[in-house]
C-alpha cells in the first residue's frame, strides 16, 4: 500500500525523486516447469552500484533468472524486490539486452526511433545514440542485415535509449569476434560510469575479469557463490565454481 503511494508521489514529482530500485533483494526464489526445477530457493542481495556478473553452467537458469528480475516471468514461489517494488512494476526502468537481438523489420535508425517515440523521448537523440555505438554510417540500412556484432550494438543502443537505471545483459557477446566484444564492453562500461547498474550474464572468463565488480555463481538453482571478482578468480570458495573455472563438467 505504501509502495503505491510512494509511486504516485514519485511520478508526480518526476523521475529524479522516484524510489531507488536498489538494493535488490531476492528471497527463496523458486521456478519450476512441471517436474523440472530451474531455480530452487535462490537468495541474493545486490548493492546499489557497479557491475555484477552472473556465471554458471549451461542450464543453470541464468537467463530465466534475468527474465524474472526484469518482470517478464512470474516465479513459482519466492520474491524479487527492487527497493521494495515488484519486478513487473519496474520493467520500464530497466532494459534487457537479449542474447539474440530481436530487431524490427526497419532501418537501423527506425529501430531506435521506434523506441524513443514509444517512450515519449526526444527522437533527435537517434543520431547521437547511433554515433555512440558506432553505427552512424549504417543508419539507413536494414537492421536485420547487420552483422552479429552490429546487431548487438544496435540492441544495446536501443536499451540505452530508454535511459534504464538497471541494464540487464544476457550473454550479449556470445559468438561475437573479439573486436565486437570489446566494443560492446566499452559501451557497457560507459553506461556503468554514468551510474547505470549493470547485471551481466556471461560465460566469458576474460570478460568477467575485465568488467565484473562481483560474481554471482549459480548452480543447481541456487547461488553457489557470491563474491568480489578478484576473490572469485583467485580463491573460489565453492567446489563447483572451482570446477567451472577449471573447465570441468559437474553434474
Amino acid at each position, binding site marked *: 500500500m505504501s509502495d503505491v503511494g510512494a509511486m504516485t508521489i514519485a511520478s508526480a514529482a518526476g523521475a529524479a525523486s522516484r524510489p531507488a530500485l536498489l538494493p535488490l533483494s531476492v528471497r527463496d526464489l523458486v521456478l519450476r516447469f512441471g517436474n523440472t526445477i530451474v531455480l530452487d530457493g535462490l537468495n541474493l542481495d545486490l548493492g546499489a552500484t557497479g557491475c555484477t556478473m552472473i556465471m554458471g553452467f549451461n542450464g543453470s537458469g541464468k537467463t530465466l533468472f534475468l527474465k524474472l528480475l*526484469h518482470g*517478464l516471468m512470474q516465479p513459482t514461489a519466492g520474491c524479487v524486490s527492487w527497493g521494495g517494488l515488484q519486478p513487473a512494476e519496474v*520493467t*520500464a526502468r530497466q*532494459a*534487457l539486452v*537479449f542474447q539474440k537481438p*530481436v530487431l*524490427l*523489420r*526497419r532501418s537501423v535508425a527506425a529501430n531506435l526511433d*521506434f*523506441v524513443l517515440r*514509444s*517512450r515519449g523521448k526526444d527522437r533527435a537523440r537517434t543520431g547521437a545514440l547511433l554515433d555512440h555505438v558506432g553505427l552512424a554510417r549504417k543508419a539507413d540500412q*536494414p*537492421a*536485420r*542485415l547487420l552483422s552479429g556484432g552490429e546487431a548487438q550494438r544496435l540492441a544495446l543502443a536501443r536499451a540505452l535509449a*530508454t535511459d534504464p537505471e538497471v541494464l540487464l545483459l544476457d550473454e550479449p557477446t556470445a559468438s561475437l569476434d573479439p573486436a565486437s566484444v570489446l566494443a560492446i564492453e566499452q559501451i557497457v562500461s560507459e553506461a556503468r560510469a554514468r551510474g547505470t547498474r549493470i547485471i551481466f550474464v556471461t560465460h566469458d572468463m576474460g570478460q568477467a575479469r575485465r568488467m565484473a565488480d562481483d560474481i554471482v555463481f549459480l548452480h543447481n538453482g541456487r547461488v553457489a557463490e557470491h563474491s568480489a571478482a578478484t576473490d572469485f578468480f583467485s580463491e573460489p570458495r565453492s567446489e563447483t565454481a572451482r570446477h567451472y573455472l577449471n573447465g570441468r563438467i559437474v553434474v
Partner: protein
Amino acid sequence: MGNILQGVGDALGLAIQLVLSGDPDLLEIVFLSLRVSLTATAFACLVGLPVGALVAIGRFRGRNGVLIVMNALMGLPPVVVGLLVYLHLSRSGPLGFLGLLYTPAAMIIAQTILIAPIVAALSRQVLEDLHMEYSEQFRSLCLTRLQTIRALLWDARYSLLTVGLAGFGRAVAEVGAVIIVGGNIDHLTRVMTTAIALETSKGDLALALALGLILLIIALGVNAAVQSVRMTAARQAYV
C-alpha cells in the same frame, strides 16, 4: 465439336480485338469491377486487420472458438452473402430505406462482408507468428497494446499485402454475391464476372472471352506486382 472450336477461335480473335481497341462498354465494365472490388478490399482491410491483430495478440476466454468461426467464415459462399445483403437492403428489409439495392454500393457491401473474414483470419496468422518473435522484446520495452498492434501491422506490411491480395482476388472473381445485390444492370452494376455469365448464356462468346482475358491479365498483373514488391522487401530482410 469442330464447329465449337472454330467458334471459340473466332470469338478469341474478336475478344483480342475488343481489348486492343479499348471498347468503351468493355472498359466501363472493367473499371466498375475494379472500383467495387478495390473499395471492398480497402474496407475489408480496415475492419479485418485490426480484428486479426486483436485476436493475434489477445489471450481471452473463447479464443479458440473465435478462431474456428473466423476460419470457417473464410469459406462463406458468395450467394449466401448476396442473399443476406439482399434481404437487408430490399425495400421491405431493415435497411431498405437507404435505397442501396442494385447499386455499386450494395455490391461493395456484399464483397466487403465476403472478404473481411479472409483478411481477418489470414492476417491473424501472419501477425501471431510475428508476435511470437517480438513479444518478449515488446514486453521488455513496456509497449502498450496499441503500440504493439501498430508495430506488428507495420512490420508485417509486406506479408499483409499478400493477405489483401487474397481478399481482392476473391472479390474480383466472385459472381454470386454481386449478381444478387447488383442485378447486372447495364451501365450501372455490370461487372466483369456478371457480364461473363450473361454473355455466355446469351451465346456472345467474344465479349465473355474478352472479359475473361482481362480478368486473367489483372489477376496476373496484380500478383506479379505484389510479388516484386515482396522480393524487393525480402532483399532488405523486411519480410
